[in-house]
Each structure stands twice: as C-alpha cells, then as structure tokens.
C-alpha cells in the first residue's frame, strides 16, 4: 500500500454507453476504490439508439431518452458522476485530468470513452442553423420539432443515421427526399444486395431517393431552403438533416501525445500507447484478432458496451483480449437490418432466403471461412439467424456453402458439427 489512494482511482472520460458500462463493470468486478465518470452533457447517462427512432416518433415530446444509469444506481454503486463537465487536458506524468473549471481529478487508470461527433457538411450555405445533425438528445428534440406532418425534408446521407431518420420522418407523415453522393445506400460496411433491399423499402414508403447525387450548395429563402444538386436540379424543403458520418473524438488523446490512427489507437487489450490509459467505444481504434489484427473502429451500441466492460476489467488487471464479433442492427419501418462480423472480409457471398421477405447473406473468405453475415427483414426471421452466424464467425467456422444456402438446414446444426 505504498501508492496514495488517489493514484488508484478509476476515472472515465465520457458518460455514454461505453463509459457508463465501464463504471458499472468496475463495481461488478468488486472494485471498491473511487470511480469517477465525467460527461460533458448535463443530466444522467442515456441510451443513444432510440434518438433516431423512438424519440423521433413518440406521440409527445419525450422528456429524456432512457437512462443507462439512474440516480439510485449511481448512488448504490458509489459512482461519482460529474455531469456537464468537459475535460480539457490529461497530465500523464502527474496522472491527473484537468476539467474546464480548473479542477483536477487524479487517476490510477484512465478510460477514454469520448465517442464521436457528427461530421459537418462543408458546403456553401450549410451553417448549423440551416442543417441539423443528430448525436445528442438535445439534437433529437430539435429535429423532432421539424418532423411535422406534411413537412418537406431533405436528408443528406444514405448511411444508418440518415435512413433511420428518414423512416421516422415518414412515420411522422413528412415527405422526404434522400440525397446520397455514392451510387448506392450504405456503402460503408453493408453488402450491395442488402442495401438494394433497403432502398426498395424506402421507395415503397414514398421516399424520393437521389443516389449518386452531389450537392453544390444550400440556399435559404425565408423559412424555406433549396438544396441545389451538382446537376443543377433544385429541391425546395422545410428542413435539412444530415447524417454524413462521425469523427472520433481524439483531441484529448492527441494533445496528451497518445497514438492516434483513425481514433485513439489501442492494442487488443484496449490499452493506448500509455499503459495506464485505455480507450473504448466509438473513439477507439483497435486490432481485431479475428481479422488478422486489422485495425478497425466501430460505431455501434453493443461494441461500446462490450468494450467498456472489457476495458474496465483490464483496468483492474485482467489482461483480456477484445475479440468479440462486430455486430450491429438498424431498425427502419417494419424491418430490421443486422450485420455480424465484417462482410467486406468475404470474397464470395452465399444467399439464404428466409421467407417473408427476409434475406440473409453469408460472406466467405477464399478458404471458406465465414467472415461476416448480413440480413434484412422482419426481426423474427433475421435476429436468430444472425446470432447463430455470429457464433459461427467467432469459431472461425468454414461451413458448407450449400448448407448455408439451404433454408431447411438449421444454422444451429452447423454450429453443433
């Protein structure tokens, strides 16, 4: 017991999914020393997935997103939650962080769960007053107020956020034009046939999809805006929403001299280049053991949760590798889209028709190993199968392609082989 108690304190910067989960895990693992969770937003840590969906379509204005941790749990777990606090610097030599108000918080181990921020459009006329972005609950409330029945909206970006907001806006009876620069939806991480099914579902809902469409500028005329496309066509609307990607929040880490590479660079223990500092969640760039240590960064709820929990255990000395299969989902209309693994690691795809409009694709490497699986359709069809595919991926299975294509062969039976 030579170290002073403050040096053994666990400090977490970022009170989103990864940070909150890490704080809870420290306690579940029996850690009895101080735990400080620092978040830049006022209020309790909340879940972000509902922001683009339930919060948008709720009958009345929600007063809050669902909490990850409420007052009672924070109190019971003796977690010191500093809400509405920014961290301005890390002093690695002195093992402390400095808050915006000048206070210092000492750490033994530090977790950076700083998340990501919405990428801003660099276009003439795209000021923050003209274009809305979604990241926080406050953004979601403001966006909600624009989704009035009959409102004409332009959504810029055919990624998950843009598509989920589009589906929510359609449910709120808005008329939506979606503009995507790439030739198809969901270019990043989603195989073409799945993206094609998603596009069809949006078109069936009346969405005007403009794919391969660059934007030249945004003009404002009183309460209206006009989005001017590169080909000169003009879309007049009552509101503009952009979902054009996220940028990992690495400022603190960079200023502290930590390694940065498309995020805060960690090893597979989620340790940064400083052994007393860890990273987890959207900000974390890590080598994945299942994919030949390819450096990846995931913007996904479950990854944030799992990495937060694993980082917490490693902060306590567990020395565990993070090798969880990447997994995420997106809900649009009556459909769910789920992806396990990394489809782009596959060289060939095998299709399994699940019926009821649900399709599954398996993505296989040259040696037959299952690298990823993607599915879209009713959740009752998609979820179980993707979960089983995830287990096959985790085991580095090389399932028979003919069996994968045959819907009468249960995936569970392949797992038990």
């Amino acid at each position, binding site marked *: 017991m030579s170290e002073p108690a403050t040096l053994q304190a666990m400090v977490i910067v970022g009170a989103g999914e990864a940070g909150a989960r890490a704080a*809870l*895990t420290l306690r579940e693992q029996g850690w009895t020393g101080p735990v400080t969770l620092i978040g830049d937003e006022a209020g309790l840590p909340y879940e972000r997935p509902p922001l683009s969906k339930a919060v948008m379509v709720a009958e009345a204005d929600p007063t809050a997103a669902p909490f990850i941790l409420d007052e009672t749990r924070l109190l019971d777990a003796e977690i010191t939650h500093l809400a509405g606090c920014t961290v301005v610097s890390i002093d690695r030599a002195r093992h402390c962080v400095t808050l915006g108000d000048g206070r210092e918080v000492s750490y033994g181990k530090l977790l950076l769960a700083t998340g990501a921020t919405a990428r801003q459009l660099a276009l003439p006329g795209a000021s923050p007053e003209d274009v809305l972005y979604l990241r926080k609950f406050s953004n979601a409330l403001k966006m909600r107020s624009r989704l009035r029945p009959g409102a004409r909206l332009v959504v810029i970006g055919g990624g998950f956020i843009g598509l989920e907001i589009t589906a929510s806006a359609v449910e709120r009876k808005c008329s939506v034009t979606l503009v995507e620069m790439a030739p198809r939806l969901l270019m990043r991480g989603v195989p073409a046939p799945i993206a094609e099914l998603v596009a069809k579902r949006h078109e069936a809902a009346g969405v005007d999809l403009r794919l391969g469409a660059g934007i030249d500028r945004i003009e404002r005329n009183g309460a209206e805006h006009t989005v001017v496309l590169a080909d000169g066509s003009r879309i007049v609307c009552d509101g503009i929403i952009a979902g054009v990607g996220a940028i990992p929040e690495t400022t603190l880490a960079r200023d502290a001299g930590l390694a940065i590479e498309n995020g805060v660079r960690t090893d597979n223990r989620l340790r940064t280049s400083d052994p007393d500092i860890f990273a987890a969640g959207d900000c974390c760039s890590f080598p994945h053991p299942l994919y030949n240590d390819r450096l990846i960064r995931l913007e996904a709820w*479950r990854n944030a949760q799992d990495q937060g929990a694993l980082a917490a255990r490693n902060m306590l000395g567990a020395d565990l590798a993070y090798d969880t299969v990447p997994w995420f*989902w997106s809900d649009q209309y009556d459909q769910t889209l789920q992806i396990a693994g990394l489809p782009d690691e596959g060289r060939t795809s095998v299709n399994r028709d699940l019926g009821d409009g649900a399709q599954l694709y398996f993505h296989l490497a040259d040696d037959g190993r299952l690298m990823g699986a993607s599915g879209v359709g009713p*959740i*009752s069809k998609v*979820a*179980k199968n993707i*979960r*089983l595919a995830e287990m096959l991926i985790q085991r580095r299975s090389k399932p028979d392609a003919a069996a994968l294509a045959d819907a009468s062969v249960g995936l569970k039976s392949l797992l038990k082989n």
Partner: protein
Amino acid sequence: MSADNGWIEACDADEIEEEDVMRFDHGTQTYAIYRIDDEYYATDGLCTHEQVHLADGLVMDNIIECPKHNGRFDIRTGAAKGAPVCVNLKTYPVRVEDGKVLINIAG
C-alpha cells in the same frame, strides 16, 4: 380458451420445435413458451430492458437472448444474466395435457 384456476391453453406441444420458443398472446399480455429437452417453460414475452418480443430471439443452452440487445435470461428461472438486463423475467407454471401446453397465469 377457458380459464381454469388460471390455467390456459397456449399451444400444441408439437408446435414448438426442440430448443425453440414461440410467442403466445392472451388478452393484453404476451408470453414466450419454450421447449428444451422436451420440457416446456413459460415467461413474460417481452424483454425487461425494452419492449422487444423474446420469441424473436435465440434459445440455446437454457438461455433466451433478446433479439435486439442480447439481454440474456435463464429460461427455467427467469434470472437476468447480466448487462444490459438487470430485471428478472417473470416465469409461469407449465403443464402438458393431451398434447396441449397449458400455462398458469394466475397470481
């Protein structure tokens, strides 16, 4: 479907495949009925984390997994098996008679 001391008929026993789950709605309630090693179990139908039907999830090794957030519960006891779920599932007595699965929803 008649109520008898809280016992109601949920489904035919062979409607549920081995190591699988089926949704059963009764009145305003929804339940999940499971078959594992030819034993039958019943729990509330919605995950305690968010309102998601557990019958859309995967049954494996006596565990039901929520199809959306991978919350996990022991089917036999309803016990929550860790984050993100921390509230246990309510379970119901089950018996099989004449090829029918009956669950007791009283109390």
